[in-house]
């Protein structure tokens, strides 16, 4: 849910339900990396509330655009992490079998 002003779309707070530091801190990182971001930060208003508020102020673009772009960035990073990781695991198994060490037959 977005809490922003009608006249100035460049600053708003996004209230995400069922999220915590895991997502908020990761997306804060990608938001900070976006040159359009003037300010960003997140808070968890109450520890027993399952909610996190992410505040974004931009240099002019709509905060929503910047936010979705940052989520997109994070997703691209995750995809890259996954492919790199899978490749590293395959490489490790290859090098292990070449060295003639025991390798899990199930895999």
């Amino acid at each position, binding site marked *: 849910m*977005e809490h922003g002003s009608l006249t100035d779309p460049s600053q708003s707070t*996004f209230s*995400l339900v069922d*999220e*915590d*530091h*895991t*997502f908020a*801190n*990761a*997306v*804060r*990182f*990608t938001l*900070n*990396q*976006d*040159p359009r971001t003037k300010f960003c930060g997140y808070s968890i208003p109450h520890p027993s509330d399952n909610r996190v508020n992410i505040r974004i102020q931009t*240099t002019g673009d709509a905060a*929503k655009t910047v*936010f*979705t772009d940052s*989520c*997109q*960035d*994070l*997703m*691209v*990073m*995750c*995809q*890259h*992490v*996954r492919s*790199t*990781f*899978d*490749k*590293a*695991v395959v*490489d*490790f*198994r290859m090098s292990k079998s070449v060295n003639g060490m025991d390798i*899990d037959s199930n*895999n």
Partner: protein
Amino acid sequence: MSSDTEDTTSGSESEASDSAKANSTLDFIEKLSDVPMGRLPPNIEFQRTRVECKADAPIHTDTFQYNGAYASMGVDNNLVDSFCDNFKVEVINLTEDEMEFDMIGIDPALANAFRRILIAEVPTMAIEKVLIANNTSVIQDEVLAHRLGLIPIKVDPRLFEFTENNTPNEKNTIVFKLHVRCERGGQRISVKSKELIWLPNGSEYPLEPQDTKSDSSSKPKTYTSFTCSQDSLPEFSDNPIYPTSGDITIARLGPGQEIDLEAHAVKGIGKTHAKWSPVAPVWYRMLPEVIISQDIEDEMAEKLVATCPVKVFDIEDIGNGKKRATVARPRACTLCRECIREGKGWENSIALQRKKDHFIFKIESTGVLPPEVLFTEAVKILEDKCDRVISDLS
């Protein structure tokens, strides 16, 4: 400066020189030897990439996430663009339920997100409901049920659905039976997790008291409503479900005592209860670096080697019967700081550092899924979160 932060380092340099033409003062400043454009001075670069561990406390522990943090020096601090080129993974060790790997070129925000998801958000199957028909052991029903819940079950949770108030069926529930009896006049026995027997046809307990006279041909209603037997499904037919270890003690029975129960396992996440957590511990640490800035020789070197409890240092011969301390195994350093304690005589010659973007990641699985699969699942969950937020906003 806002426009050139979007460019790469070289782009900001060219723009910086454009503005220099218009402003001769700026031109003069930029030509000074101690104004490095496009490159951080070594001390700032050190603060950016390393945590230095001093004897009393570590310093430079922050990460500099803001992309314009070094804009005044003409350096673009954007890591997202260069991430795909710089990110590396090196697997150090991989066994059936343990894995150690290095993640290089990633921010702690992401590394920590993966760790948190592994602990709290990767789903597994665990016993949630226990129907106790008889329990005459000394262990109370609720304690017994709790102990059963903590037993990890070797089954791929991706083959199941979340229950979400649906009636238990073959897609969301696994049923186990436990019936153990200690005969009178015998020895006390231990009930082990291997005695949990999978019931692929679902619960055997009737929902209502059975009427033996009427319609004995039709199946009585039980606590689960399976439409088919789970072992007829291709994924389980030659892959029976059982606890990851058969050697977990559930209870102890004295002569004459008996436990007769049914345990229903459902899918859940570690956030709800730790029994659904698929990892024993998962942790990361930054790569330690141990640097000897001035030679430590002979007797001092011997003492230094003996001081380190994890044997980070070694001795090398430098001729003329002289010996010198070297750093042989920096990775083993646990940062106990014994080597930089005051009064040893060498504490100013040694620097302990950690690399901020190099994580030694260790996953210990409970055996539910192999660790490499767990990590991939965790990354997928973070992707799903992003996807959910994007679709919520649009």
